[in-house]
């Protein structure tokens, strides 16, 4: 059944993690009778195991819900589910651009969080009609009146006009659907223009190739049409055109305002990138839809197989993951300490965790992941630049930073961070931001109790444990969102770690000069705890260039020989020796120092922490 544009409503749900977005979506599926008790499962729309387990949405989703409204008409409601994490803010913005309205779902006990507000701003920028809804009003801790005031202060409007629901019990859900029908404008598009559709998600499927989710803006897409992806230039015939309701359902055509997916024998998601425009190859649109952006990795890390024999398998696994996720990059690199591996670029830390977890879970490859770092723009000392050499280097691996005398200055990426917290914690938040070299840009009281702080912060200062520190210093009440804000000059140095006078490249880090001693001392101290005693003393040093800034020693082991080895002990002792020899293969040798894999992992996993 096709719907005229005036009876289509496309909307997203903006909510913080745990504020009940997936539960509300589940309830909407039940109200519109797309699922019954038998087929229902919790978080119906979250497909990946990781999504269900972590309670977050990584990939966007779209579900088509026919809804008979109180006015007697049947409307087509398209719920476009958006990712809920700052790492995926670009994907959020594309999903929003595929909608005309957004439900702002706020936990009536927790209130607004920075991430929600950030996404709310994205929705307002995209011109969406925002429908605020308070969830979990059945909880004893709910403070609906107070939270409603906060929302009204932010959005304008009457606090008493804000809908109140319990997604858990289903109370108030119909009113939300009615409000969507009433307030969200119908899509506007030119049905006769050359076809244009906005890609808001693409997912790799081993059998069908890439499944591309789009919102049709102009014209019509029909089964069998030769479609072109305007940014990548890839084109092929549509082999499957369908909507999700809530299981896939083939459809002959999709017109303006409609949402669905197609397959066209696309081999990897890189060809059908989020934000790209789909058009008719035979009758192409003159201009793509605005807003396409190449994905840019922000956080980098080296991934190394624990067992060097796994290197080809790791390459294959990364290639396969990339079929499904065009936003991460990888290229081979070599580490003296870790052997062959890949330098990978991610959108953010969560993205990095998800990729490592998928490698472990889906491909079963044990990995050593080096401490995450950002990409630096290194301006070389003009007198030290050879004639054919570029004067500026992009450095995404700290080990690649040239020696200090060759560097004129270094630029590091910064972010515009928004922090939201109860006013009692403003001091703690400001102290943390100052420790992390932040510049306060703006401070605003949303209400008397809630403060919005804007800081410019070096990205490197927040990728590691900033979020945890923020949470612990505000008892979990502060929240954070950020977006890239260009490059800033920083007084940065590389700290190398030397074992037995050999530098261990995997431990090299770029830090601010003021923090280099502290970092060096902490890392050296930690390694002294982690490295087992060897046959000889192992000095551990931290150095900037040739200057040693910290030193510890792992004292030599003094005795390991077993006391008795007589006739009955030989077999047992030899077998122990053979087991130890096997264990030795899992040691990483740095010069003559043998480091158990676990020590490497432990040292790196606490990377830039303090």
């Amino acid at each position, binding site marked *: 059944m096709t719907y005229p544009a005036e009876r289509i409503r496309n909307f997203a749900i903006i909510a913080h993690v745990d504020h009940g977005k997936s539960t509300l979506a589940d309830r909407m599926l039940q109200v519109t009778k797309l699922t019954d008790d038998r087929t229902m499962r919790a978080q119906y729309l979250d497909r990946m195991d990781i999504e269900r387990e972590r309670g977050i949405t990584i990939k966007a989703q779209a579900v088509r819900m026919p809804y008979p409204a109180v006015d007697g008409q049947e409307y087509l409601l398209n719920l476009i589910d958006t990712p809920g994490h700052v790492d995926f803010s670009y994907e959020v913005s594309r999903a929003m651009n595929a909608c005309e309205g957004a439900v702002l779902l706020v936990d009536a006990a927790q209130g607004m969080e920075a991430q929600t507000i950030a996404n709310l701003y994205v929705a307002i920028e995209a011109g969406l009609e925002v429908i605020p809804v308070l969830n979990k009003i059945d909880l004893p801790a709910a403070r609906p009146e107070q939270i409603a005031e906060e929302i009204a202060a932010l959005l304008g409007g009457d606090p008493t006009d804000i809908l109140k629901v319990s997604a858990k019990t289903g109370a108030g859900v119909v009113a939300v659907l009615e409000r969507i029908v009433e307030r969200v404008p119908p899509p506007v598009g030119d049905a006769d223009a050359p076809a244009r559709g906005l890609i808001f998600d693409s997912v790799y499927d081993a059998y069908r190739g890439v499944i591309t989710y789009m919102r049709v803006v102009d014209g019509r897409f029909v089964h069998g049409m030769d479609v072109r992806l305007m940014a990548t230039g890839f084109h092929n015939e549509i082999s499957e055109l369908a909507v999700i309701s809530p299981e896939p359902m083939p459809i002959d055509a999709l017109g303006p305002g409609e949402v669905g997916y197609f397959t066209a024998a696309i081999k990897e998601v890189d060809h059908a990138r989020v934000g790209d425009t789909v058009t008719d190859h035979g009758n192409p649109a003159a201009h793509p839809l605005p807003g396409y952006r190449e994905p840019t990795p922000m956080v980098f890390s080296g991934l190394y197989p624990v067992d060097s024999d796994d290197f080809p398998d790791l390459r294959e696994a990364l290639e396969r993951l990339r079929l499904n996720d065009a936003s991460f990059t990888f290229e081979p690199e070599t580490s003296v300490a870790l052997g062959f591996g890949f330098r990978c670029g991610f959108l953010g830390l969560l993205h990095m965790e998800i990729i490592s977890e998928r490698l472990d879970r889906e491909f079963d490859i044990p990995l050593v992941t080096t401490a995450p770092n950002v990409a630096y723009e290194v301006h070389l000392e003009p007198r030290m630049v050879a004639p054919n050499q570029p004067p500026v280097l992009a450095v995404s691996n700290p080990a690649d930073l040239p020696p200090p005398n060759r560097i004129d200055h270094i630029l590091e990426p910064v972010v515009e961070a928004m922090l939201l917290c109860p006013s009692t914690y403003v001091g703690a938040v400001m102290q943390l931001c100052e420790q992390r070299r932040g510049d306060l840009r703006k401070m605003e009281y949303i209400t008397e109790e809630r403060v919005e702080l804007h800081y410019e912060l070096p990205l490197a200062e927040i990728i590691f444990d900033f979020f945890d520190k923020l949470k612990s210093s505000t008892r979990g009440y502060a929240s954070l969102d950020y977006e890239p804000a260009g490059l800033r000059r920083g007084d940065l140095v590389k700290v190398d770690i030397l074992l037995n006078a050999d530098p261990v490249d995997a431990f090299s880090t770029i830090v601010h000069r003021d923090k280099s001693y502290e970092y060096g001392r902490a890392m050296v101290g930690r390694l002294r705890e982690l490295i087992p005693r060897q046959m000889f003393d192992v000095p551990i040093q931290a150095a900037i260039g040739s200057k040693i800034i910290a030193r510890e020693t792992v004292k030599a082991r003094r*005795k390991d*020989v077993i*006391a008795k080895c007589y*006739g009955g002990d030989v077999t047992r*002792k*030899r077998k122990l*020796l053979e087991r130890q020899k096997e264990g030795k293969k899992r040691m990483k040798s740095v010069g003559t120092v043998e480091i158990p894999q676990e020590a490497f992992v432990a040292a790196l996993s606490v990377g830039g922490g303090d």
Partner: protein
Amino acid sequence: MGPGLYLHIPFCQHHCGYCNFAVMTGADDAFRTRYIAALKMDLSAVAAGGPRAVAPPGADVAPEWPTFTSVFVGGGTPTLLAPSDLAGLLRHAREALPVADDAEVTSEANPDGLTADGLSALVDAGLTRLSIGAQSFAPGVLSFLDRRHDREAPLRAVAAARAAGVAQVSLDLIYGAPAETARDWAASLRTALAARPDHVSAYALTLEANTPYAARVRGGAQAAPDDDVAAERMAVAGEVLGAAGLERYETSNWARPGARCRHNLTYWGGGDYLGVGAGAHGHWQGRRWWSTRPPARYADAALAGGSTTAGSEILDDATRRVERLMLGLRLVGGVDRAAVDPVDETALRDLVSAGLLDEDPDRLVLTAAGRPLADGVTLRLLPG
């Protein structure tokens, strides 16, 4: 040097906490008698089978036994047997196998209950050497180790052995118990030396799995030994025993010239030996085997004329080289390169430059600094 014969007597008065040997407490006279009979029967059966039955299948081995140059009765506590029973066992060994007239014949002994008369009976049966488990002369350490004899008992035992004409007397000592102080250890060494033993074995206390001591450590009732402390005590042992004219010849063994334990040198040199008795191990030309460990099951099998072998392995050349390296490095004289090559040459150079191995193209010999680290050195030298 010919092959050796090991005989195992599992009986003890009680189980000392640290011990993981095949021991049995509470056996009555009837069972002891039954066990001795079984042991003799098993020994006769092994002897009758000839060397080809214990060597790897198809090995180039003469059909007749070569002459045995050592007999070692270990335990357990062999001297818990009536002297006549133990003497009878020694005679039986000489009847069953060709044992050289001048063979070294050792028995282990606890310090308690040794009399000159009883020991004379053993000397008459060919005993030449007594190894007495003194362990310590510090009461606190003896108690930590569950040893029930008093600190004078080992000295009385040495005197009894001398009186009975035992040619060589050895004392066993254990260092590094958490209850032991540096002074305790120095005093124990001095007391042991005052008894003028021909031989001293000084062992670092080792936490073995499946012992009462290990259970107490897990439960927090006793502390585990500390390797750094053990290294210090080992160094002190080397100095004190060396100054008294005892030469170190193995990681844990010192002897006056001419008093090294021939039987144990067979083990460390990769030589052949028969092991008879519950849980005893044997080695012949690259085959290792071991007997059923529970004494009752061992005795049942032996008396029924069945096999007492619980398991065996044939060592390939590479494995034999690993064993030669592992055992040979324990000897103060080291091991011939030819017997153990190939080794990891890079590791070898590192170890020499770290001062743990002598620079010697023909032999691998640990330095004094390398001696307590023999196991790590062995591991590093293993090729591949």
